């Protein structure tokens, strides 16, 4: 079993209304040293695969096709083999 940890973020330059609102919230809470905030998604995918390479291929593909929206988002992922995971 493999666990992919995928971070999906808006591309630089794309307006991030969430990040803006959170930054505003933090500053009104008194965190005046916050310069900026970006909010994205964090996705964990547990999958079976024959090899690390196979898992890698699957994750790259599904991220590009479904998990991220390549028109406005970028992504990064890491992949680690795991013992059978508690599946929720």
């Amino acid at each position, binding site marked *: 079993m493999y666990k992919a940890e995928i971070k999906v973020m808006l591309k630089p*330059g*794309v*307006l991030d209304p969430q990040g803006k609102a959170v930054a505003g919230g933090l500053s009104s809470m008194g965190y005046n040293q916050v310069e900026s905030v970006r909010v994205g998604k964090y996705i964990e995918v547990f999958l079976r695969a024959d090899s690390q390479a196979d898992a890698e291929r699957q994750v790259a593909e599904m991220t590009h096709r479904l998990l991220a929206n390549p*028109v406005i988002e970028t992504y990064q992922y890491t992949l680690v083999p795991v013992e059978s995971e508690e599946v929720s």
Partner: protein
Amino acid sequence: MKEPTLTEIKENRLWRSMGLSDEEYQKICETLQREPNYTELGMYAVLWSEHCAYKHTRPFFKLFPTSGERILQGPGENAGIVDIGDGWAVVFKVESHNHPSAIEPYEGAATGVGGILRDIFTMGARPIACLNSLRFGELANDRVKHLVKGVVSGIAGYGNAVGVPTVGGEVYFDQGYAGNPLVNVMAVGLVRHEQITKAVASGVGNPVMVVGSYTGRDGIHGATFASEELTEESEERRPAVQVGDPFTEKLLIEACLELISSGVVVGIQDMGAAGLTSSACEMASRSGSGIEMDISLVPRREAGMTPYEVMLSESQERMLVVPKDGSEEQVKAIFAKYGLPAVVVGRVTDDGMIRIYDGEKLVAEVPAKSLSTDGAPVYLREGKRPAYLDEAHSFDPEILPLKSDYTADLLKLLESPTIASKEWIYRQYDHMVQLNTVVPPGPADAAVLRVKGTTKGIAVTIDGNGRQVYLDPYQGAMAVVAEAARNLICCGAEPIGLTDGLNFGNPERPEVYWQLEQAIKGLADAARFLGIPVTGGNASLYNESSGEAIYPTPIVGMVGLLEDISTRLTSSFKEVGDVIALLGWPGSELGGSEYLKLVNPIPVGKPPRVDLAREKALQKVMLEAAGERLLKSAHDISEGGLAVCVAESCLQGGLGAEIELPWEGRPDALLFAESGARIVVSLKGENWARLQQIASESGVPLTRLGQVQGSEIQFRHTGVEHPLITVSVRQAKDVWKMALEKALLAERG
């Protein structure tokens, strides 16, 4: 980024990549008496794009009837305004967001809603309702499902958050839109006469202020992009996709309305397509003045933006305001309350020039008028009747086999996503916020909103039928106006104004140009005959993919008035035993119908002929009957014909109907033809005589069809023993209610 020099522009003919032709470039040089620099070229390119300049449609606009007793503002401003009495007026407009929605459905649709709302509150009106008109390919395709889900959530995501109810719309699924979906959104606002505000920059010396969101590199050249065909590369045009921020829009609405009621505003204009360039130029050219501004003062989200980028940015949720001189601090204070920047960036001048500085440096200087629609080129072309028409018209429905039972056909129609219940869609829209929605989406041909503090109601609808326009653009477009009007009168409302959305292919092709010309004439003639002024509209051309144009799709948003909202009607049957009748003329023209689509996906046949005199007489009768409270329900006959119309009235009310068709002719034509000038009504038997009297005074036929009954829908044909259709309400409802959701969620393979 460094901007190209004059030589680089010329050597590489950079205007071409901005969508300008060589002749247009020449025209700019002549106007300026010199070569434009890169920023100036960009400004011309966006404002002379089809989207902003209406280069192909403008010559036709003079055909539209635009005046009337109620008209407070016709075409030319951000939105039209119609008086509804008691000091109130309704502001409304439609806008397309087809190209952005094809690339990124959620954000494309969301920013479409944001844009049309700004057109409304910039006039001083509080937005009270949104509608949308959508076209997609057939749902069997996964890409289409993705688009549908994205567009619907985008509309919901934006509209729900800003607190403007989405109260109606229409959706068609047809192969003709497979490569190029249509997303048209309409917004409606309510304003006190004294609050009406215009987008003019007058008063030399008055400050010019940028308010709202920060400016980033969003959607540079979006307007140009909206004026091109979709290609593989457009998928790569990332910057043209903007992300909407409904939270900021909500604050902007409140801030602008508060500002306008404070009385210090001279003019205000939203920054839509072509951003700062179009707002500055439009405000100046409307009042014959000029504007001078320093764009280094524009609040920015990103570092290092060039003048070109600042002038062309289409960052959302921004406005340009010209307040009275001396009221700058008051403006700032109002916006500060809502956490929004408001910055003086320039002044109104009297020389008619748009003069842009970046700090000390003059970066652009062009006559405002030359940028505006008055200065932009106009193209009159030679149209050509498309060759497909003869073949399509030659289809003769008589060749279809006759059947003794049409139950299966009715069920197939009820199951087709175009006709099936749209509940899956409007359940995602907050259609109740603001507490005005008296008739919500679903149970009637239009939505009805109350005007608090009065007895009045406003009915709103949006309609189009690309299949019929494809078969005959002139007749088809007239039919669209007639249908929109019928939808309103079926709610008991008198039509008082319309806005149109022209969705067509590439007008440089003679066949498309012909469709455009014919359709506009159809819209104009119908509007004039029915006495419904056109207060504005929108054009979206170049809707093509892989060389295929969409069906020509003019859509009409229409607003109606009920002086007494308690006379409103819905389409559902209300009580067993009520008489069901047809008000209007029997019809049997199957051309272009959804029924024919079951056998032939491409539209075929001659579409129904529109008889405007009949439509007008029918309207009169219907309004009188509604006003006298003679009716229990009214529903106009459109897609799916009489059979679907009756079935819908049954399914909405959970009751059945027993119908006998008294006319001669092919049963399928009697059941499924989509001929106009027909309304199915239900009423108490005791009101029959009076209804008949009203109808005959206007020469409108009234035909008894049957009555409302318990749990079965049955159609018979006079003289034929076997019923044409027998189906339980329960079965029909299951099919109709779940069809859209099922089709959308169906897995592949």
